[in-house]
């Protein structure tokens, strides 16, 4: 759901798909802030946004947009 921007101080909420599930966030939110919110700050992760890898060095510079599709992955045991 997105509320059209109105005079200053109005809340803008965007919806973003993360690992297949739709979530809503206040805009603006950087990827770094998202990672903190998800308690993944200490974990070794990799992130794909709309099919493109976002390097860790870019997490603070990139902000989520409405309709973004993110995949956030970790290493697990496997053969």
């Amino acid at each position: 759901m997105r509320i059209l921007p109105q005079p200053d101080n109005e809340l803008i909420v965007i919806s973003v798909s993360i690992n297949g599930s739709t979530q809503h966030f206040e805009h603006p939110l950087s990827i770094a802030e998202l990672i903190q919110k998800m308690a993944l700050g200490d974990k070794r992760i990799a992130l794909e946004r709309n099919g493109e890898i976002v390097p860790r060095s870019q997490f603070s510079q990139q902000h989520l947009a409405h309709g973004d599709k993110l995949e956030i992955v970790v290493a697990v045991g496997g053969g």
Partner: protein
Amino acid sequence: MINDPLIIAGKTYHSRLLVGTGKYKDFAETKAAVEASGAEIITIAIRRSNIGQNPNEPNLLEILPPAKYTLLPNTAGCYSADDAVRTLRLARELLDGHSLVKLEVLGDPQSLYPNVVETLSAAKTLVKEGFQVMVYTSDDPIIAKQLEDIGCVAIMPLASLIGSGMGILNPWNLQLIMERVQVPVIVDAGVGTASDAAIAMELGCHGVLMNTAIAAAKNPVLMASAMKLAVEAGRAAYLAGRMPKKLYSGAPSSPTSGLIS
């Protein structure tokens, strides 16, 4: 011990046993088994982080650190070239640019047999993007050569189906592959017990990759050490040059003269 290193993509390894990290009961067992195996190259899978999971849960890479092991991210569970490529791009970012990867593209979830058409396609893309691809494949020698020609750094044919423990079902195809490719041939999938690993090495394979054989053993840590010995024994036997097999030789091991009568 003889100096007989395994060289993959220009890097030297001393263990010819590669192990997976899946199917263990917990991280402690994973760590103990990996250590007992002596493996230097270990595979890992790439999966979605579980949103809402316990944030205090340790990460696999804390018990098997990238500084100590060569971590080989796989594409287990991928059924298309596109998914496999995306997974490995994520893996390379996850591992700070590390580009040695294991490619597998499966054809069906029951047999887990590789889809070699999608595998060839994924391999082409990945090699172009600078990955060093160790590729899981069938024991088809024509496909194996095509994968090498594409630029894969190791060919990893199955011995039998993933997780089946059926052992080396077609040693002849493995031999055909080894006659045709120059890069290391590492048997991957289907090893069940120590003799299977030894047989693979006696055939002249350069290494063996296994997961279930160790993790599903009643005593995984003991099986891991057995596998370490089996790979070493098989390799030494291969280098020693076995005696020929004959129906009969008529040549006993003890002198034929000086017998009492």
